[in-house]
Structures are given as structure tokens and as C-alpha cells.
């Protein structure tokens, strides 16, 4: 306070220079980190931010990708509202998610628990084997599964026939096709999910589990009452990735079922792809992708909210 009173009248200019100097000083001082993180922001701006805006603009036009584009305002969106195929693909993604994600997450939890056991030998080997499918190209895996699940000559049905089970129309029935897709996805992603759970398990202090065991709790009880609640962040993380992944599916339905039968396994991204590259309806494809974008954003926001809400700090007993 006293300082201010003592300052001369020529202060404004000095302050101005000071502020500018502060910026320069700051920039020079923080030059390194800003430059380090710059590539991300530049690339993102050019290859993602701009396209997002461009996509919005495209969605307001009717365009074949060739020649002049015709402005249609919200026309594409109005059509989209009535597009049963597109909403069907959204529903498919939801159904698919419900079919395989809970089962896969639970299995991942169990597997991670088993892998985490102190007495387990060859942990590295088991981990590697379970994770192996994740490194496969989904195109290759898709074709292999298609062969194995063939109704007439596939291995699955031949195997089942040994037990007297009549052939299952794995890829020829609406629900079985969805289940087959789910099987492929579980096979591919179980390892990934298991590793995530394993990482979480390694953060649980072992004393907690020991104490519970001393108290007489058996493995199942420990699993249910301690492990699962403590792993909630990991579970939420894995499930959200699964949600986003399921809605973004393309390769697996493209190779395994071609979106069928009766379009029961088509996904939003598949629809965007066909609309753009096969029907040459670029504007419509852009509108579709925007709606799908909105859905994903909502789901992700939900995840952030849910994650930030639950923070169990070693809520043991």
C-alpha cells in the first residue's frame, strides 16, 4: 500500500512494459515445455479440430464427394431421425455391449485375481498367453472365426456334435450372430482387460487381504467384498473403454458378419463407412458421424463423472 503511494505518475507505461516483459519472460522461461507439448496441439488442430468443424459443414450439405455440393441445412439430420438402419446400428452396439462386456469384465476380474495369487507359478507365461490374442489383426481373427463358426462345416459345430448338440447357426441367426461377434471380442480383449485389472490389484495393499484371510474369509468372499469394490476405478475405466470400443466397431462386423444377418450386427461406424465409400453420400455420412460423436461424448462425460464420484479409499470390511 505504501509502495503504491510512493510510485510516480509515469507508472502506467512502465506497468505496460512490465506486463509485456512478463509475457516475454514467461514465454522464455516456459519455452521448453510449451515447445514440447506443441506437436500434439498443432497436429490435433490440423487433423482433428479442423476436420470436426469441416464435418459439421459437410453434414449440412448433400455431396457425392465429386462436383458441387448442395446445401441442405438440417435436411440430413431430419432424414437421419427417421433412418431405421442407423438407429438400428446404435441399438446393435448397445445390445452387443450388454452381451459381452459384463461377462468379459467379470472374467477379467477373476483371471486377474487368480494371476495375482502369491502361490502362482509361471505368472509371466499365463499373462503372455492370455494377452496374445490382442496382438492379432482383427481381419485375420475375423476370418478365422468365420470359418470356425460356419454352421455346416465349422469346427465349433463339429465339436458340439460329439456331445449330441445339434448345429448352432452361429452366423445365420440374429442373436447367435451377435453372440458370435461377442465371442470374437471377448477372445480379443480379455487379455487387455485382465492386465488392467491386474494393475489395479497390484495397488491393493496385501495386508488388507491377509487380514481378511486371517479373519476366516474364503477366496470368494474376499473377491466379492474387498477386491471388486476396491477395483472400481479400474472396472469403470475398462468398461468405458469397452463402451467406446463397441460403438466404434468396424473391422469385426465387416469381416465376420458383414453387418448381417438382417443388419443385426451393423454398427454406426460401419454405416458411416458404407454411406461415404459405397453410396457416395458424404454429407449424410458426416451427419451420421456427428450424431454418433455426440453419443460418445455423453458416454465419456458419464465416465468422468462416475469415476470422480466413487473414490473408495481402502474401504475394507
Amino acid at each position, binding site marked *: 500500500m505504501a509502495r503504491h503511494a510512493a510510485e510516480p505518475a509515469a507508472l502506467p507505461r512502465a506497468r505496460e512494459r512490465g506486463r509485456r516483459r512478463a509475457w516475454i519472460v514467461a514465454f522464455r522461461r516456459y519455452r521448453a515445455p510449451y515447445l514440447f507439448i506443441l506437436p500434439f496441439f498443432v497436429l490435433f488442430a490440423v487433423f482433428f479440430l479442423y476436420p470436426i468443424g469441416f464435418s459439421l459443414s459437410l453434414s449440412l450439405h448433400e455431396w457425392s464427394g465429386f462436383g458441387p455440393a448442395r446445401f441442405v441445412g438440417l435436411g440430413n439430420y431430419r432424414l437421419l431421425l427417421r*433412418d*431405421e*438402419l442407423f438407429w438400428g446400428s446404435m441399438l446393435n452396439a448397445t445390445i452387443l455391449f450388454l452381451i459381452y462386456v459384463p461377462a468379459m469384465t467379470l472374467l477379467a476380474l477373476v483371471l486377474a485375481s487368480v494371476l495375482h495369487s502369491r502361490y502362482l507359478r509361471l505368472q509371466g507365461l499365463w499373462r503372455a498367453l492370455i494377452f496374445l490374442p490382442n496382438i492379432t489383426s482383427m481381419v485375420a481373427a475375423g476370418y478365422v472365426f468365420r470359418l470356425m463358426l460356419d454352421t455346416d462345416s465349422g469346427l465349433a459345430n463339429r465339436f458340439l456334435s460329439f456331445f449330441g448338440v445339434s448345429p448352432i447357426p452361429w452366423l445365420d441367426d440374429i442373436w447367435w*450372430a451377435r453372440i458370435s461377434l461377442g465371442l470374437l471380442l471377448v477372445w480379443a480383449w480379455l487379455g487387455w482387460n485382465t492386465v488392467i485389472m491386474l494393475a489395479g490389484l497390484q495397488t491393493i495393499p496385501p495386508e488388507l487381504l491377509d487380514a481378511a484371510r486371517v479373519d476366516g474369509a474364503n477366496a470368494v468372499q474376499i473377491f466379492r467384498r474387498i477386491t471388486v469394490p476396491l477395483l472400481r476405478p479400474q472396472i469403470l475405466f475398462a468398461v468405458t473403454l469397452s463402451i467406446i470400443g463397441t460403438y466404434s466397431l468396424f473391422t469385426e462386423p465387416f469381416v465376420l458378419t458383414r453387418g*448381417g*444377418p438382417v443388419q443385426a450386427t451393423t454398427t454406426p461406424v460401419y454405416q458411416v463407412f458404407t454411406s461415404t*465409400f459405397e*453410396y457416395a453420400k458424404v454429407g449424410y455420412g458426416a451427419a451420421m458421424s456427428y450424431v454418433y460423436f455426440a453419443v460418445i461424448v455423453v458416454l465419456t462425460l458419464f465416465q468422468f463423472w462416475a469415476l470422480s464420484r466413487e473414490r473408495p479409499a481402502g474401504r475394507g470390511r
Partner: protein
Amino acid sequence: MRRGWSRGALGLVLALVLAGCVGGGEPEQVSTPRPGAETSGQLTVWGWDAAIKSLKVVDAGFRQAYPNITVKYVAKPPMDTYRNIQLALSAGSGAPDISVIEDSHLAQFVKLGGLADVTDLVKPYTDQVNAYRWKPATKDGRVYAMPWDSGPVAVFYRRDVFAKAGVDPASIRTWEDYYRAATVIKQKTGIPMWPQPRARNDARLLEMLLWQQGLGYVDAQGNVILDKDPRVQRTLEFMGRFWREDLSLDSEWWQDPWYKALGGGKVATIPEAVWMGTFFRDFIDPKGTGHWGVFKLPVWEPGGSQASNDGGSTLAIFEQSKQKDAAWAYVEYHLTRPESQLQIYEKTDIFPALETTYQDPFFQEPSEYFGGQKVRELFVDVVRNIPEAGVYTSEYQEMNALMASEVQSFALGKQTAQQALAKAAAAIRSRTSRA
């Protein structure tokens, strides 16, 4: 573009005058723009394996006629070829000089633009080619492709199965007869009549049956008729009978189990286009000489048409091509000369759309593979009577996908034919902005 053509035309006149007619066989041609022998270029031709193989049949002669033209073929499955064409057209570059394009996809590209206008060049052949072929290639009176092969449809049947069931193919005159024969054959031999999968149906048989009646997705004005014309529903319901009563082989087309069933006589008939016969001979049942015979499509009503179409392809030249002379030389040599088309037909069984070839005695010969039956003659008869129908529209791919999905649902018993057609019609109308 036009400048190139006139140069070529001049060249040909000179060449004709100097060299006389090239490739003896039809000296009575009207002065067709036929590029001179000195025409040069390095052509890129896109297509799929089978098509390219057929084109290559006459390449030796082509090289002789045009020693300065070299050809590079790029073979890709049809869907990839079409996607690449679309990309090239919309990118404004990267298109080949020529591509094989099926009728089913031609209209879409003609509408999109980017194919070279060949109206004047193909004018002499307008009457020589099956009449119905020009429609998908034409827009606003201008023509953008040259038809190559056609897909006249008939019923291929297994002689042994029919014999075992005691059914005489000649007795099948209407579709009701066909249905009755199906039940008899099923009873006596346990074999299904035709291969129509439920969950993997591609709607192509439906399209064939509709085409036979001059029907399709749209009428001549382009309005959707699936739910308007009662004959469409009747056709779909007719197909439904085969699923309900297990008279249909539930196997996905073009997959190995389907090939095996056809080759092993596990299905009694298959209504398909002439090129199916080629496939039988080449790889489905190569040792099956005499196994199969052919009869014309049964009629829906007495006096009705016995002709339909499935498939058919063309060669199109691209606007982007900088060697349109050479490109037209290629197309002209391969497709417009009866002897070329005949050679292709003889070697690879691709049925020419060029009607002047039909005069050749080859068409009168009995076919050994089909038990000595004169099938070529039969197909010529069929192809001359194929009606115009609104199947291969400029949005065929989308319409077919939407239709197939509803047919699958109907086949699986999840909806009635009326519902299926109503839904398909509604979806098609909204997605293709038609009435």
C-alpha cells in the same frame, strides 16, 4: 477431349483407305470410327480376375492390330474396383483409362459423372446390342459405356435329381408347376428345389423374378413400386412358400458349402444367368458333364415373359483418360467386333450382348457339358426378350442392401411379405429421395 476424337477419326479414314479392312470377317460395316493401326498408348484397364481373363483372350489379335498400344491390367474384386473408381472420380485423378463395370453399378457412376461420352462412337451398334442394355449406360440421351456381356436367366436343373423324382422338366410351364415339382422332388428325393438362404439372402433371386415381370425397385418415372404393385408382393410370397416348407437350400451363395452343394447335386435347380453355366463347367462341377440341363423360366401367367436378367457388364472409358483414342481402340476391338466377342464367348463363356454374333453357327451347336442340349440357342432366345425393368438404378447398391435385409427378416419368419416390402419401400424412398 473432342479434339482427340477427330484426330483419331481422321487417322482411321486414312488407315482404312490405305490398309483396307482390318481382321477380315465383316466387310459390310458402315464407316465406324475405328482408330488407325498406328494409334499408340499405354492403357490401364481395371476389372476383376474373371473379366480380365476373358478380355485377355483376344489380346493377341489386339496386339497385332495395334502394335503400339500396351495394356496393363489391374485386377481387384468388384467391390474394391468400384470403391477405387469412386475415389478416382471424386479425387479428380487416378482413374484408369478403361474399367469393367457391371450394369448394376454403372448407373451410379453415370450419374456421378466422370465417364467419357461415347454416344457417337457407339451409335452404329445401338441396334446391334440387346436393347435393354442401353438404359443404365445412358443419361439425358448421352451414352457413357459400351455393353459387353449380358446375363439372360434360365433354370439350370440336375437331370439325375429330376429323373429320380420322375419329374419331366418340360412339364414345368408356370411357377405353380415349378412349386409342385419342388414338393414332389422333396418327397421323392429329399432334395431342396433351389438355393435361397434365409439369414444371408442377397435379394438377387427376387430381383430376377421381378425383372421377369418387368418390375423392379422403381417404375419408369423412378418412383418406388415395391409396395404399390401387387405382383411384387405375390412374388415375395411365392418365395416364402419355399422357406416355409423347407424346399430351399439354406446356404450362403458364393461360399464353399454352397459350391459343394451345387457340385454334389444337393439342390435340384438354380435359376440364374448364363454365366452360371460357365462356373459349373469351370470349377463347380468340372467333371459333371451331363449332370445339368437348362429350361426357360416358368411364366407367372399364361403368355407371360420367360426372360429375365442377372448381371451383365460393360467397358467404360474415363474422362480423365488422356488416351481416349487408344482406349476406344481397345473397346472397339474387344467388344464391337463380332469375332472378338465370339472368341471370348467360345473360350470363357461370357455371353455377348452383341446380337450380330448370334448368327454364328457356334450358337446352334449342342453343348456337350449340358448333355447335348442346345443351351446357347436357348439363351439367345431368352436375351432377345428381356423386358425393361427398374432394377439397376443409380442407387442400386443401397436399394439392394435395404431390400436384402427385409428379405432376410421375411425369410426368417419375422415379418410378412407386405411388411417387408413396406419397410423396404419406406427406407428406399427416404434414403434415395424418391416418391
